[in-house]
């Protein structure tokens, strides 16, 4: 089975405070640590486990710049056979549809039985996989949390409300967006990264892919971010101040008052 996994490099926001820049048109990126988008990493792990059973290859691809090569190498250190960078000034400012258009052109240059994406990126778009499937006229399933190969088809479950699972049969080739928790992604050590440091990562631009530059990037985008701003605060929490012992004393009194402590 030939599997393509679409990945993205994103700021690792789980532990970071995000600040706006003075102009308000972007966040402060100087001190941010970037990493692989978390659901994408689960998608790569799933692809690796599938080819370990069924044979085949895993290719990881991203639309971005030279900086994004590091996440391709990280996923190659996990075991992906190939990494491909799709990069061109014409792609800058793409909306979700623009990214999907570039990926579609790349998919059509090769042959893939299965295409995986992460369920969403840090901006919560949850869109590229579904768009790519529609452009290719492939079936699509989102929020996938298990995959079983069944002949020329897959049995996939989707995560729906209340922790329930929706079971589906889906024809190949297809596009699946992978939910976190589907597997336990393997650890990647520095040694693994070093081993793939000199592997060549091919780069394709708009003309290599036959992408019409006016259909992608800023020129083709119907959806554009105008500015960033800090969310309007709700009433906000009453923040307990003081040293830890004082805070604990206040908290215990409050919990008693609310009937949570007798």
């Amino acid at each position, binding site marked *: 089975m030939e599997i393509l996994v679409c990945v993205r490099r994103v700021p690792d926001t789980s532990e970071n405070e995000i600040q706006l820049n003075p102009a308000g048109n972007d966040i402060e990126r100087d001190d941010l640590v970037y990493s692989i988008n978390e659901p994408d990493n689960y998608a790569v792990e799933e692809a690796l486990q599938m080819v370990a059973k069924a044979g085949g290859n895993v290719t990881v691809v991203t639309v971005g710049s030279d900086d994004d090569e590091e996440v391709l190498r990280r996923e190659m250190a996990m075991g992906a056979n190939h990494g491909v960078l799709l990069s061109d000034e014409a792609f800058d400012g793409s909306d979700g549809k623009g990214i999907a258009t570039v990926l579609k052109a790349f998919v059509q240059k090769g042959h893939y039985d299965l295409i995986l994406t992460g369920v969403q990126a840090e901006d919560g778009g949850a869109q590229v996989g579904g*768009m790519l499937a529609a452009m290719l006229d492939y079936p699509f*399933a989102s929020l996938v949390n298990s995959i079983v190969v069944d002949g020329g088809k897959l049995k996939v479950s989707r995560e729906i409300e209340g922790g329930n699972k929706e079971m589906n049969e889906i024809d190949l080739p297809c596009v699946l967006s992978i939910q976190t928790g589907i597997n336990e992604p393997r650890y990647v050590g520095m040694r693994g990264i070093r081993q793939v440091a000199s592997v060549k990562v091919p780069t394709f631009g708009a003309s290599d892919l036959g992408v019409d530059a006016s259909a992608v990037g800023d020129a083709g985008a119907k959806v554009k971010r*105008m500015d960033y701003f800090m969310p309007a605060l709700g009433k906000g929490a009453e923040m307990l101040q003081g040293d830890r012992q004082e805070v*604990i004393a206040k908290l215990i009194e409050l919990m008693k008052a609310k009937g949570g402590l007798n």
Partner: protein
Amino acid sequence: MARIFAYIVHKGGIADDSAAELAAAAKKIDAAASPVAVVTGWGAELDAVCETLCGSYAEIWKVANQALVYPNAELVRKALLSVLPNDGIVLVPHAHFGIDLSPGLAIKMNSAFVSDVLGIDGAEGSNLKLVRQEFGGQVSAHVRCDASSGAVLNLRPGAFNPQEGAPINGVIVDKSAEVGALTAGRRYLETVVAEAGDVDITKHAVLVSVGRGIQEKDNIAIAEELADTLGAAVSCSRPVVDAKWLPKSRQVGSSGKTVKPKIYMACGISGSFQHLAGLKGSPFIVAINKNPKAPIFQVADIGIVDDILEFLPELTSRVREMKQVSA
């Protein structure tokens, strides 16, 4: 302004809460709009949903097709493409079905798509000014969406307050004949209901809930000790389940359990909207997080900026001392 359509999610003959929210959102795009409810399905359940919508929508488009008895997104997309005008603005709730349906629908309509919209700041010509959140809800953004050739907008559940208005005497328009035979490359098999789990977090008055800030599996014991001392149960947010530190049955959120405790202690939980969607009945929320910008502090009653790995054990020992004195 193009016509606005609201895709109605329904189950068992009852429209989802989002039906009224989409109507409210349509008014934010165009105060004069009379949005059309679009309902797909089959049989008596479909008819029942259409009837109830007559009170809140002036026009209801019914699309009955036996293939739509279960809402398979690919089949629904094909049905919608048969009935909707290409320049329509289509509103869909941003939940598991909308995530499945809307990106592909927008491509096939050649329309713009914006996901997880939580505000609409009006329209200038055919440009919609929308509000979204990025970076785990830490930052908001205005987004301009060119809806000149239509738009599909996935709206965050709970973000648009339904408006009280005079009841409408809506009309049901049967569009079923416009839809041909429906087939898809994906077929629904069955729904597997979640397992109950060892502890029923929906039955506890106090929950000590842990998130990514608990850092490793061995630290779950810190929360369990506090919970034991308080007579509470330990629940968690999604990353803890993804890491297999706690079973799925302990997860609070839209893809986990809906809980109604009196007190909810959110420990090292950032507070994503999917997580908060699992909290009902207005619990007293105590948030403890070392990141003072964590979105949880916007919705909590009490906020404490501290490292839970140090704070929780000290809280546990103080509660124990207190209980010994009173015993």
